[in-house]
């Protein structure tokens, strides 16, 4: 072995929790995209994984729909406007957290302090209500950002593994909120604050947002095609482009109409969508996002390519902090008060959502879309089992099994692929 191949230092702390080996979908040396054969069809393995996830979601939905059929609900209760709206409100906090967690995990890190941060940020937001609505909300987000910056600095600059820093945070931030509140529950009194977690936007606003979303999708697709033509790249045909606009448009229209039949789109859901869109944009369309994937995928290669590992890991934790701040506001508003144990175990829900959504805890792989679908799967299981009056201990067993099974299937597919 070459002695001159000297070990350059790696800024990345050692990860302790691994699910996936750094394997590539297809190990064979070739020129192709990894593909999996199902019958006569060869499907790119990466898209297969996304489809499997959506398929699992649909199966879960259909099952609960079928299981909730009774004399009052001949078509089932689960996907009805009332319950579906509730389901989405339940998943909003986890979904928001999962979006932030995804970026941290993609960079090869982890954040275990998220639940305690939700408790602390939400508590401080509730305690500062006397100063008015904006200062109170800003305080919640600022606390998140500050904690993210502190933890990120310890990971990136003091080289303490993220697992340890945030495990310490999990204990410490919970202690801080207990000390600040003396264990008391602080009610949310500002009406606008409260409505953040409980109310709906007016049906007309929902329709307006839907129209804006459809227009944006159309504009992006058209602009993209013209840009591709400018660079002499193959642009999609008119049919494909139309499909790419019409399909999401139908989904959006259907969604808004369904929600409007039940008072409107819930505000937490709009917040979740906004956070997820920003998160998807950050990860897919910015140098920041690209570098996170490179740092998580191969820190040595990233460093040699001139990327500052420290700066980007710190930034990922700061983004996580802001996201936790937003989630803490939603959670506090939804509960109607800040309790010292608020947010307990939420970090695990967020991590589970990412993992179910195909994120590798080794870093370098995962999408915001997957993480949000993962959160939706978790929330669907929660909601559906509650509707069926499944006892809570069984709910926990089922959720645990689903988490392990999701990763198990993924590994199985990867080995075969």
């Amino acid at each position, binding site marked *: 072995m070459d002695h001159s191949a000297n070990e350059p230092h790696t800024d990345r702390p050692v990860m302790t929790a691994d699910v996936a080996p750094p394997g590539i979908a297809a190990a064979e040396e070739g020129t192709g995209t990894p593909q999996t054969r199902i019958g006569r069809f060869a499907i790119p393995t990466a898209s297969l994984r996304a489809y499997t996830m959506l398929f699992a979601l649909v199966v879960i939905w259909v099952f609960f729909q079928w299981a909730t059929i009774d004399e009052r609900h001949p078509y089932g209760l689960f996907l009805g406007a009332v319950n579906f709206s509730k389901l989405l409100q339940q998943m909003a906090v986890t979904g928001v957290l999962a979006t932030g967690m995804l970026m941290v995990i993609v960079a090869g890190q982890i954040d275990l302090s998220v639940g305690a941060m939700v408790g602390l940020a939400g508590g401080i937001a509730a305690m500062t209500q006397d100063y008015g609505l904006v200062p109170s909300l800003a305080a919640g987000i600022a606390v998140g950002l500050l904690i993210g910056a502190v933890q990120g600095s310890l990971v990136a600059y003091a080289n303490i593994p993220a697992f340890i820093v945030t495990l310490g945070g999990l204990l410490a931030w919970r202690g801080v909120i207990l000390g600040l509140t003396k264990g008391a529950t602080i009610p949310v009194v500002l009406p606008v604050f409260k409505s953040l977690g409980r109310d709906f936007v007016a049906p007309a606003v929902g329709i307006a947002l839907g129209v804006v979303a459809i227009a944006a999708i159309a504009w992006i697709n058209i602009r993209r095609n013209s840009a591709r033509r400018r660079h002499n790249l193959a642009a999609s045909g008119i049919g494909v482009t139309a499909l790419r606009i019409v399909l999401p448009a139908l989904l959006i229209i259907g969604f808004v109409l369904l929600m409007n039949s039940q008072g409107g789109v819930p505000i937490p859901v709009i917040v979740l969508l906004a956070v997820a869109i920003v998160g998807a944009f950050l990860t897919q369309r910015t140098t920041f996002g690209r570098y996170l*994937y490179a740092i998580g995928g191969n820190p*040595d290669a990233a460093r040699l390519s001139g990327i500052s590992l420290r700066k980007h890991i710190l930034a990922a934790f700061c983004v996580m902090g802001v996201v936790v701040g937003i989630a803490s506001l939603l959670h506090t508003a939804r509960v109607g008060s800040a309790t010292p144990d608020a947010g307990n175990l939420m970090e695990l829900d967020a991590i589970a959502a990412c993992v179910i959504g195909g994120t590798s805890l080794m870093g370098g792989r995962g999408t915001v879309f997957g993480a949000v679908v993962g959160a939706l799967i978790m929330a669907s299981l929660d909601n559906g089992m509650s509707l069926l009056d499944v006892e809570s201990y069984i709910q926990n067993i089922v959720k645990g099994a689903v988490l392990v099974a999701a990763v198990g299937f993924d590994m199985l597919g990867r080995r075969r692929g």
Partner: protein
Amino acid sequence: MSTASGGALLEMRNITKTFPGVRALDGVSFDLRAGELHALVGENGAGKSTLMKVLGGVYPHGTYGGEIIVDGKLRNFGSVREAEGAGIAVIFQELSLVREMTVGENIFLGREPRRFGIIRREELYSRAGELLKNLRLSVDPHIPIGELGIGQQQLVEIAKALSQEARILVLDEPTAALADAEVETLFRILRDLRTRGVGMIYISHKLDEVFQMADRITVLRDGRTVGTDQTSDLDERRVIARMVGREVGDIFPQADHARGQVVFEARDVTVEDPNARGKLLVDRVSFAVRAGEVLGIAGLMGAGRSDLLMAIFGAHAGRMTSGEIFIDGQAARIVRPSDAIRHGLGFVTEDRKRFGLVLDQTILNNMTLAGLNKLSGRFITDEDAEAAAGERAMSDLRVKANSIMTVAGTLSGGNQQKVVLAKWLLTNPRVLFLDEPTRGIDVGAKQEIYREINRLAREGLAIVLVSSELPEVLGLSDRVLVLHEGRVTGEFKRADATPEKVMACATGHAQERAA
């Protein structure tokens, strides 16, 4: 067949070992007598380490061809354990010690003296102490091995091998990490072992040590035995001739590069080993490269070639204790790779899987990684501009893949290397470092990389090429710099650089001034 000292302890007959696309060993025969020190020498990649891995059971029976005969008995080792059971101990360059455990615990790791499953600590330490005393080593068996210097660790590893009653001891570059005094201790122990009848296979690039210690010398080249002779019948010149004896074929597209101004200059670069204070990996190395020139850096493993480039690029773990970099005659401060890139340096690193590629990512994302902020916006990426640049690079370098969105990890070695090269070309470098650019890739891809190097030089890039393949360095370079143990031991113009002269410098002989 001379059986002066007890007959053949070990015989390896007609050993063949192939890796996908490469025949690493091609009918190698080798034998070892009891009480003999038999040196195995050859260029990097000649097959020495592979041969020893076959012997040590790293490559189990069935994955190689040929026969291994120990004490007259045919042996088929299925694992390292089985080889150890037959008295074979291989001490690899990477030590197999557990740093946190004590010296004694390391010596008996996996074979602890115990009763009812409980380790008998007293017996362990007293036996370890005895072993060390036998070797006349003053090491306390109770201290954690991590507290010892690398040289002493190596000696403990030998003690460990002897505790397993090893009669065949393989030493792979044992002195690479040792200081002079430690080398003396090692040699004293080896001489002791010789009188005890232990057979030793000694792999080294340092010919003076080989001639000092070896009874016989076997030279390997390109996976074949070139010859085995008594040391007394050989001299260094003949050994070097055997090591390199190979035509520099016409696979290298000869091209004389018109040279321009000096673009890059490094003065007195010194790099300290991050794992051993005071040990220098690179010692006051200076060189300059002109636009359109290819400067080759030759040297054997451990000569400090990669350390030199890594340090200049701001990517070395060790401290660069001295050294100045000039770009276009202007002093440049390079602390981290991003500084280097900003100054127009590009670095195709060795070991593309470890340092070059994000294997999970697409070809496109890999190609644009280093130059992303030039190709794209500073924050928001321009996917289409990126894709266009990527497509162009892909067809320029003839990367064979379904599309630019193919995952890099699924490509063949040659195509992966082209992706890494494309990554650096997309940063628009003026100086390009290439460290082992053709290692582990097939001949066709090698040719394409050679052509690309010549094309880039014609376009005025200043290129620094490090390669372990001597013909490659000689075939592509306008000038060759030779390193040995971190120092420059020779510099040749293309016309003067013969394999023999370069190899002589690489094995530690200073260049003859008269030449």
